[in-house]
């Protein structure tokens, strides 16, 4: 068959258009039938449903994840809170209802009315919060009188509960209402106005894991707004539980020790970088944020001169003082400007240029080698080492030891600290570096600034033989059923650029600081636990070197800060600590005892744990593990 191509002409088009018209008609007939079904056949039913807008959405808030310490001790929980709401459309007539409600709530009806008037932009069909966290008795009295209180409902909501007041306040953080700016930013896509989100600390950093997913219900209500039928439910997904690395007992002990002073204490596991304690004093009560902090409370927190909202453990920048000598010593050895046999003489002062730089010990230390210099913290020895090295080489080593930049701990507002170089000073002040300033740098004064967490990581690195691990606050994230979602593994971020031999040499000096005859921290020696460490006293104001006024006579705010960094046990360290007490004067007097008590608290229970661990191990091997 020959199929010849026929050109489409008007008649052909007309034919096809007729077909199209038929299709269009058919489709619209379907629409019309549907209209009949909805409006004529089922019209009554829909009219009834529309009268009270009977079908509504109720939201189901997800339970927020809890926070635990590394051993599974509960730190932050949720507890039920009974909140009284009113739905305006159902509450008509309003005034009698409010009068009756006022009796139950023991609040004047006028207050309730003004509260309602104040909330704008809420539809008459949404429940409006009147009072939060009413007691069980109020709940009972309202529930019993429900028939008399149309539109009033009591919901059980979950309220954040920080179990121990002020414990790890800066680390854990707190919740507060989401701000309009945060809603707009798009970082919180599932949140609505009025939701509580983490604003500080771990609550903020792990917000996405903790929050969970909102659920909801389609419900049918009657003329009074009472739910008569649940149509469909979308379950809420609870948030994940966060296991922090801290040890709750140790944290508690550290905070008790810091009570009454201003400062911070950080304890780290040298082998993993996991933070055992992060304490900053003074602290604040996170529970005061839960119901919505009052303006007075907030003002008093903000204007408190001791700044309780500041997390000194990661934000506080102080001159490290003599703790810096660890760096000077290792740098000097590594660069070869001194060695284990170098002996220098300390008469109590050192002349450089046309200035006299004093040693803290008036009479001087006499003949000093590196071990003695560390043990007795001889300034003169380190002046000379610093002078030989020069500020830039010192700065290189300090930065390699992690100072001068954030450790990367997973918290907001971590400070950088400061390690000056010649170029930096020229840029900053326009004045070139004076060699005499290097001497101050070498003993941890001058422009140097370090944070407690930087010093703790430094101590940990020295303790474990030269490996720098990122400090971690998260141990694990678990689902509500206990399944582990994300176990945090140690993260190596650097190695100390020193040879093992040099490190061992300095570590011997650090051991002697606590255990030697003349060690500056010999007062913190323990009989059963072998501690190594370094004291530090960092001056707040630069004092003329021949200032004769004793430290104790200075007004408090001008007294030096007290530092102590330590690790224990010296052979195989399991804990490294950094403590700083603002205006605490001497490291040995103020900071070292705190570190000692912390180490004691941590290690004295360790023998029990070690036994348990050993038993488990033998059981595993018996089972062919």
């Amino acid at each position, binding site marked *: 068959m020959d*199929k010849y*191509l*026929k*050109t*489409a002409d*008007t008649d*052909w*088009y*007309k034919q*096809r*258009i*007729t077909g*199209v*018209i038929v299709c*269009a*008609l058919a*489709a*619209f007939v*379907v*629409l*019309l039938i*549907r*209209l*009949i079904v*909805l*409006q*004529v056949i*089922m*019209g*009554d*039913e*829909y*009219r009834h*449903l*529309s*009268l009270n*807008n009977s*079908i509504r*959405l109720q939201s189901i808030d997800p339970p927020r994840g809890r926070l635990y310490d590394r051993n599974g001790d509960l730190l932050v929980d949720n507890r039920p809170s009974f909140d009284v709401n009113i739905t305006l459309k159902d509450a008509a007539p309003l005034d009698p209802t409010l009068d009756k409600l006022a009796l139950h709530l023991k609040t004047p009806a006028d207050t309730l009315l003004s509260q309602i008037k104040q909330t*704008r*932009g*809420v*539809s*008459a*069909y949404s429940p409006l919060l009147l009072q939060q966290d009413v007691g069980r008795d109020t709940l009972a009295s309202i529930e019993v009188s429900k028939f008399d209180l149309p539109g009033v409902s009591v919901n059980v909501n979950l309220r954040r509960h920080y179990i121990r007041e002020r414990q790890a306040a800066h680390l854990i953080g707190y919740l507060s209402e989401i701000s309009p700016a945060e809603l707009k930013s798009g970082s919180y896509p599932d949140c609505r106005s009025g939701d509580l989100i983490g604003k500080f600390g771990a609550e903020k950093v792990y917000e996405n894991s903790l929050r969970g997913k909102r*659920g*909801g219900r*389609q419900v049918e209500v009657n003329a009074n707004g009472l739910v008569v039928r649940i*149509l*469909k*439910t*979308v379950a809420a997904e609870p948030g994940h539980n966060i296991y922090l690395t801290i040890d709750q007992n140790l944290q508690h002990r550290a905070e008790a020790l810091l009570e009454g002073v201003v400062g911070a204490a950080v304890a780290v596991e040298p082998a993993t970088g996991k933070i055992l304690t992060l304490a900053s004093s003074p602290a604040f009560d996170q529970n005061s944020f839960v119901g919505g902090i009052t303006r007075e409370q907030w003002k008093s927190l903000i204007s408190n001169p001791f700044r309780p909202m500041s997390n000194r453990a990661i934000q506080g920048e102080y001159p490290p003082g003599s703790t810096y000598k660890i760096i000077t010593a290792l740098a000097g050895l590594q660069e070869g400007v001194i060695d284990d046999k170098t002996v220098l003489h300390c008469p109590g002062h050192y002349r450089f240029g046309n200035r006299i730089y004093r040693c803290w010990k008036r009479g001087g230390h006499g003949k000093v080698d590196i071990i003695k210099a560390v043990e007795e913290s001889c300034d003169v020895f380190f002046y000379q080492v610093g002078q030989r090295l020069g500020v830039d080489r010192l700065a290189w080593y300090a930065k390699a030891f992690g100072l001068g930049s954030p450790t990367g701990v997973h918290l907001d507002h971590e400070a950088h600290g400061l390690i000056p170089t010649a170029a930096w000073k020229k840029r900053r002040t326009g004045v070139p570096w004076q060699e005499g300033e290097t001497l101050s740098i070498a003993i941890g004064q001058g422009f140097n600034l370090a944070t407690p967490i930087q010093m703790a990581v430094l101590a940990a690195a020295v303790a474990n033989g030269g490996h720098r691990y990122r400090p971690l606050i998260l141990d694990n994230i678990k689902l509500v059923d206990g399944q582990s979602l994300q176990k945090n593994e140690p993260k190596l971020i650097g190695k100390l650029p020193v040879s093992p031999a040099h490190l061992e040499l300095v570590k011997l000096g650090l051991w002697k600081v606590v255990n030697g005859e003349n060690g500056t921290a010999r007062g913190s020696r323990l009989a059963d636990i072998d501690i190594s460490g370094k004291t530090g006293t960092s001056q707040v104001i630069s004092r003329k070197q021949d200032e004769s006024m004793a430290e104790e006579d200075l007004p408090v705010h001008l007294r030096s800060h007290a530092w102590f960094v330590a690790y224990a046990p010296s052979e195989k360290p399991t804990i490294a600590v950094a403590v700083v007490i603002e205006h605490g004067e001497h490291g040995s007097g103020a900071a070292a005892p705190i570190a000692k008590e912390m180490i004691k608290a941590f290690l004295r229970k360790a023998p029990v744990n070690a036994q348990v661990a050993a038993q488990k191990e033998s059981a595993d091997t018996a089972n062919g593990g």
Partner: protein
Amino acid sequence: MFDRRLVQYFDWGLMGLAILIGCVGLITLYSAVTAETPAPQKVLFFKQLLWFSVGLIAMVSAFLFNYKILDRWAQPIYFGCIALLLAVLFFGKYVGGSRRWLIIGPVSLQPSELVKIAVIIALARYYSKDAKTSGYTLRELVRPFMIIMLPVLLIGMQPDLGTAGLVVLIAGSITVFVKIERRSFICLIGSGAVVVPLIWFFLKEYQKQRILTFLDPDRDPLGAGYHIIQSKIAIGSGMLSGKGFLKGTQNALSFLPEEHTDFIFSVLAEEWGFLGSVTLVLLFLILIIWGLNVAHACREPFGTILAVGVAAMIFWQALINIGMSMGLLPVVGVPLPFVSYGGSSVLTTAISIGLLLNVSMRRFMLD
């Protein structure tokens, strides 16, 4: 230039019908925006009024010239719209997860609306040359495919899958109208039947869930499922004669989301009841058939296909929008012509009707 016969053959009925639908739309929109609590948005009504005025001018301009010159202008118009689509991807205002609007001074323009006309004109031009009764083969369809796919992809990238799908439906209708050759058609359907399950297989779980939820709003009882129920309640509660102008309670209490765009039909159905909603549905049906009649009366292919394209556009938009608000179709953001709020939609519809009038009044001209 001005032939008296143009006035003689002018289709006043069609223009009147379009204006009638426009008035119905304005009345409904007025109710939708004034009843909103807590903040009535009367400004939207006045904006729409302004757009109708501009639309009227555009409609008239669209029949002042001989539509046949569009044959020569098809390509520049098409590529001009493509340029606008590209511009919106880079410079468009980012609103609620997508970029659909270009801000030019005080005016927000939605290029994806305008590009519908461009595609209709471009396809009409291609299909009017050497058309055969046996239909187009696959090889011959490659070019139309590319003409269609370029804007569809650009619109899809905004992302605006609703409008992209609409363009596919309109273009598809035009193509089926000019006939696809039987074997090619079977090939197309066959390959579709194979490809679609294959794509389904490769989709990730959450994407599958999204599609299923889209197709069945009941799976999303807190979102689309809820909107559909409220819309059906609104429509159904209108019963025979409606609750009366400005007395729609569903609408007033903001239970209808997007009540001035997607669910505007529900507002009308609630207030004017069965009588009102049937009237609007019939008006649209008459408009579509009138457009097809214009195609029927046209004596040359380009105008015929152009008219069919315009009718297809109005058909699909009306069908999908009304069907969706009644729960027959998934929730897609497709505007109801002349009724939904939206300047670009009003403009596009006005221009399209102007083109219909254009084709209609020149049906006696034989060149």
